[in-house]
């Protein structure tokens, strides 16, 4: 008896749902997000998803007035390229999804965006800094954050402002670390800073042999293009050997684990970043409050960027709907998103260049203030540099 009732209910529900699906074809537009919602990086990924949800809730009013309903579908890419790509195939199969917000990891975004681009589906990235994300020139792929190849120069500019005359450049021999270090060296040489050495190391424990020549050369600053796990150990050994110059790294430094590894030696370390924590943005105060109220905890790094990415997606959708006079196609949405100009977001004013980079990227220089890992989020913001994207810079040069 019970079974029969439940079957009837199930059938009725299924009919209702299919009815609503038929209706949905016309006036429901879906925005998907793809971030790691499980695994070690889920702290960032969940916060990004939450920010997308908050942005849709707060900003989808104008589109609803046009007669459309915005639905949010979060996906979990687990920070894995294969998972992200198989999700991407599911996403492009759902006709009503018109925009994707994601990913956290460049390694996931690169293959997944190939799938999106194949179906003309627009993707806005809040966090992917690898130059290749936009350098492929896909009309569908845009980002609201900065690029790795402009981070190195940012560090060099700041070192120059500090009056540094000589620098020793280290890197971890990875594409990321060596890349950033090369761009740092190039800009530093252009600015007239003496580069005393450029050395890669895969060492993870004993840096004695690297420290000896550095001590002998006595540079005013050491720049290390790499990740905190190597840099923290290097720095603590260098200080124990008597190195008392300045130390700087790229956003690979940006983890409280750095403070844990370097301890007191790490205090005063400078690092550059493409995406600061939400509390450094003057426009984000209201966002932080709303976020805390809705989710009961402060937003993580990249949450404000995810909010901005969603806001731009909604603006693009709105103008695409107005232009098409009904439900727009994916191509129209992608085009409209790229056309959004001077969007005043939480993290700055964003206009995309032809490749999808923000025309003017914001790059931050921060300084470690405490050896206590718990104090990491209080690191001091020292400078914000506005650097044009490669395309914008090239255009300016031609003029």
């Amino acid at each position, binding site marked *: 008896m019970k079974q029969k009732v439940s079957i009837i209910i199930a059938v009725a529900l299924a009919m209702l749902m299919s009815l609503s699906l038929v209706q949905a074809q016309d006036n429901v537009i879906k925005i998907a997000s793809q971030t790691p919602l499980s695994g070690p990086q889920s702290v960032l990924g969940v916060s990004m998803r939450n920010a997308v949800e908050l942005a849709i809730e707060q900003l989808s009013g104008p589109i609803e007035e046009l007669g459309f309903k915005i639905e949010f579908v979060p996906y979990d890419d687990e920070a894995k390229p294969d998972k992200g790509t198989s999700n991407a195939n599911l996403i492009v199969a759902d006709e009503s999804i018109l925009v994707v917000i994601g990913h956290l990891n460049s390694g996931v975004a690169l293959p997944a965006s190939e799938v999106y681009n194949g179906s003309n589906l627009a993707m806005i990235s809040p966090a992917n800094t690898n130059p290749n994300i936009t350098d492929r020139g896909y009309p569908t792929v845009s980002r609201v954050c900065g690029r790795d190849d402009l981070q190195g120069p940012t560090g060099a500019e700041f070192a120059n402002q500090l009056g540094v005359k000589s620098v020793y450049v280290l890197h971890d*021999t990875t594409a990321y670390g060596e890349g950033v270090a090369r761009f740092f060296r190039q800009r530093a040489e252009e600015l007239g800073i*003496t580069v*005393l*050495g*450029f*050395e*890669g*190391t*895969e060492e*993870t*424990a*004993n*840096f*004695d*042999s*690297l420290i*000896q*020549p550095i*001590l*002998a*050369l006595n540079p005013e600053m050491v720049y290390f293009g790499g990740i905190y*796990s190597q840099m*923290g*150990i290097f720095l*603590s*050994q260098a200080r*124990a*050997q*008597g190195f008392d110059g300045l130390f700087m790294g790229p956003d690979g430094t940006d983890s409280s*684990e750095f403070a*844990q*590894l370097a*301890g*007191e*030696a790490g205090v005063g370390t400078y690092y550059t970043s493409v995406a600061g924590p939400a509390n450094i943005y003057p426009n984000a105060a209201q966002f932080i409050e709303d976020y805390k109220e809705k989710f009961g905890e402060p937003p993580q790094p990249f949450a404000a960027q995810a909010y901005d990415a969603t806001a731009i997606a909604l603006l693009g959708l709105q103008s695409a709907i107005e232009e098409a006079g009904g439900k727009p196609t994916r191509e129209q949405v992608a085009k409209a998103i790229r056309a959004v100009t001077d969007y005043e977001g939480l993290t700055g004013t964003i206009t995309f260049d032809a490749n999808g980079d923000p025309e003017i990227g914001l790059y931050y220089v921060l300084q470690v203030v405490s050896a206590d890992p718990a104090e990491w989020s209080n690191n001091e913001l020292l400078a914000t540099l506005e650097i044009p994207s490669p395309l914008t810079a090239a255009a300016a040069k031609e003029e």
Partner: protein
Amino acid sequence: MSTTATVQDRPVAPKANTLELVQQSWIYRFLLFPIGQMLIFIAGATILLTVIAYAIAIAFPAPNPNIDLVTQINRQLPGMIISGVSIGFVYSMIALGYTLVYGVLQFINFAHSELFMVGSATGFVVMKALEDNGVLKEWNPILMILFMLVCAMTVSGILAMLMERIAYRPLRGAPRLVPLITAIGISFFLIDFVRAGFAITRNEFNLTYPVRSLEMFATPVRVAIGETTVNVRTTSIMIIISAVIMLVILNYIVNGTKLGRGIRAVAQDQTMSGLLGVNVNLMISLTFLIGGAFGGAAGMLFGMNVGTITPYVGFLPGLKAFTAAVLGGIGNITGALLGGLTIGIVEAFLNGVLVYYPALGQRYTDILTFSVLILILIFRPTGILGKRVDEKV
């Protein structure tokens, strides 16, 4: 006949002159001779490499116009020597484990590098526990180092004995490849066991010794030599002193005690020494205990020196130490010591000089170090001190 030969390997001179009396004295045999040997070797190797370094500096000036290579080498010479000798002693202490085990069993214990890792992890646990109980700063640093050494040696030594009992003894009659594979398996097991252990208990992968919170280790000792001041790390000095003391003790155990005589007997001929009343299994266990304890001590000293270790820390020093054991002549204890020092010092000098040539850089250090190894082995296939041993019947 053979009994007397085994027991009486200390020659007794009927009429001794003063020189022979000195040579027979305990102080000479177990203190002056081994330490003198190390000093002469270190001095010789350093002088040779220093000359080579200056020759390179003069022959190939650094491509960077801002750098005068000779001045650079002047400045970093003392630092290079100290770091080379200290890491060389670490390699030596690990190499001893390989060589001792090879000596008695003719088998390479590839899990030995994990005994080194376990030693450094034990050192971390002990030091962290001292810090958590708030007594780290109150303890006398020398007492603390001794305590940590004893803990690391005990844990690694007992682990080595267990390893032998559980994994190698049942396979003693098996073909030689079989225990080799087992050793690699144990190596993986230990790495993952330690990794999982720290992940569960502390949720940490990088294990940071609280060594920088001690004033004594946080700042280097500044020694002025002429115009340049040299920063000497107390941890490097600590490695050198502890290693010398331990090596002297090992020399005494192997060459001056009944236990050592037993180990040497088993190394020469297992069956025969068994027949003559030596407890072979006990001697093999003790060999593993000594080798493991040295590996553990090396791990703990290395950990204090570098500050942060991971469960994967054993791989590279283990590989270099194995190389050192082969270089010195595997099975030969003095050979392991000299091999370790050679690799450490050569590496330090190569690192110090190569860094000034952008086309090469420090990444070529290992290639050149191993070229030295190959060269030596071409001319002396059994290693520096190895003897050509005929196949035992």
